[in-house]
């Protein structure tokens, strides 16, 4: 049968192309662990970086990355929650709703370097926060706002209308409805969104490069006005300028740490999202 043969051949081509794409990606990412895995020992996590990255570890780079990402999520989450609730619960005009929705979804695609430039202009210069971790947190919070909000909003919108009606028919006010029906039901959506936001903030480099970080001399910040070192910018500087093989290995090691951090956050978000969809399959 000629038709069957053509079908089989086409299937094979499709399969090979798909497989190749995935395989190349897997192999190249595995390279990070191959090259950097050797650098990972207790000292790498606990010591501070010395000799232009050639000696010591990345202790303060890790704390810097964590500080920025947690600060950004702590600030971004309330804003995103408010944004989502405002749009789903309080805003009435359908036209405005659609407009705001498109704005939030489109913001997700805005290049992060622009958040860096404009955030620095506004927070760093106009508000006088300078090159500091505070500026970084503010910029990242706005950057991850759409990520969190989209996730929260989709969870809220997936809530079946009859739950709200049942609540409304019992005389619950809008605030009571939010507290006892909407928020508990979108809990996993909120968790998922926050984790994705954390992952995005953890990996971001361009937006904090010249607004919140310093390569050397910075440790754990003593005040809001201090810059911090981070894994991301550490890797960047070493990748661009390091010649000492030990420093290059340290860059791969820092890459490993960052990748593990980001992967854990995304994996956790996937886990919570599967819980979310199970809730509504019932």
């Amino acid at each position: 049968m000629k038709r069957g043969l053509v079908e089989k051949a086409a299937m094979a081509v499709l399969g090979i192309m798909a497989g190749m794409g995935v395989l190349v990606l897997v192999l190249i990412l595995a390279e990070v662990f191959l090259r950097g895995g050797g650098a990972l020992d207790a000292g790498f996590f606990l010591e501070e970086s010395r000799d232009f990255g050639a000696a010591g570890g990345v202790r303060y780079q890790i704390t810097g990355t964590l500080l920025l990402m947690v600060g950004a999520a702590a600030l971004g989450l309330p804003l995103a929650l408010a944004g989502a609730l405002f749009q789903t619960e309080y805003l009435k005009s359908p036209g405005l709703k659609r407009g705001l929705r498109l704005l939030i979804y489109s913001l997700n695609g805005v290049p992060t370097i622009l958040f860096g430039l404009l955030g620095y202009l506004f927070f760093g210069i106009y508000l006088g926060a300078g090159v500091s971790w505070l500026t970084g947190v503010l910029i990242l919070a706005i950057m991850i706002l759409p990520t969190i909000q989209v996730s929260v909003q989709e969870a809220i919108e997936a809530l079946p209308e009859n739950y709200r009606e049942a609540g409304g028919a019992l005389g619950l006010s809008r605030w009571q409805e939010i507290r006892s029906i909407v928020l508990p039901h979108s809990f996993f959506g909120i968790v998922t969104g926050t984790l994705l936001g954390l992952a995005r903030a953890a990996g971001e480099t361009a937006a904090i490069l010249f607004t919140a970080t310093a390569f050397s001399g910075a440790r754990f910040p003593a005040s809001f006005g201090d810059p911090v070192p981070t894994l991301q910018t550490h890797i960047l500087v070493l990748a661009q300028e390091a010649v000492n093989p030990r420093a290059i290995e340290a860059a791969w090691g820092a890459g490993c740490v960052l990748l593990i951090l980001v992967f854990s956050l995304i994996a956790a978000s996937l886990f919570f999202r599967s819980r979310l969809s199970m809730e509504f399959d019932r």
Partner: protein
Amino acid sequence: MLFKPRSIAVFFRILVTALALTATGLIVLFFLFLVKESVPVFQAEGARFLTGGDWWVGESYGAGPMIFGSAVVTLLALAMVLPFALAGAVVASEFLSPRLRWAMKSLMELFAGVPGIIYGLLGVGVLAPAVKDFFGLIDGNTLLTAALLLGLMVFPTILTLADDALHAVPGKYRDQAQGLGLSRLETVRAVVLPQARAGLLGAVFLGLGRAMGETIAVMLVIGGRDQVPSPWYNLFAPGQSIPSKLGREAAEAVGAGLHWNALLGLGLVLFLMVLGVTVAGQLFLNKGRAT
């Protein structure tokens, strides 16, 4: 209790509205800044800012090479990766078991979150040397290298969005087509792909938007030369994209002078390009979901 239940409701409503408006207002403010701060460079350079080929700090600001570089690198990346990503999406949506599809989608989601700096490191350490040796070049940092790296970066995003678009086509159409004697692959070609066209376009546009804005990874491997290569289609030449230019020069130009205005002008051009592509993509996706 500080508030009676009723005042809590009012307080909460005001709080939510205020926070939401603050965030929205801040974002709108940001982009008003972007426009305001880039006005001086358009006054100084006029249309030459967009078309001019020379960028000498303190003398002239021509964004031509950067716009060219951005366009070439992103389009090339997309052209290279699209066949693979679409094949992956068709396989995942139409031929994998639900379990395997879930596994593949999770993997893609994981990969889509890999930070740009990791790709940058891979670009410097693996890809650029490979391009250099394979093509016998003096330097591996070229437009082609940047495009390859970008292609890898957006592969998971495009695959997973395209798979969503295909999967949104209701099963009854597949049953109908197969009931008429079409093979599974013919069904995909004749029924599923046409139905999913809007969603697929959305996936492509969103991937394009993502590639256009990537800064760090591109900056590390594109070569950083502010010139259109000669001949213009020489992809083995170093070049510059808008985000990589911003990433390189923002730190030194921060805050003052025409140089800073010129960089924000570049930012405005990038913003408009990405916004156009992303909004188009989002509208296509919504349309795909609605049908």
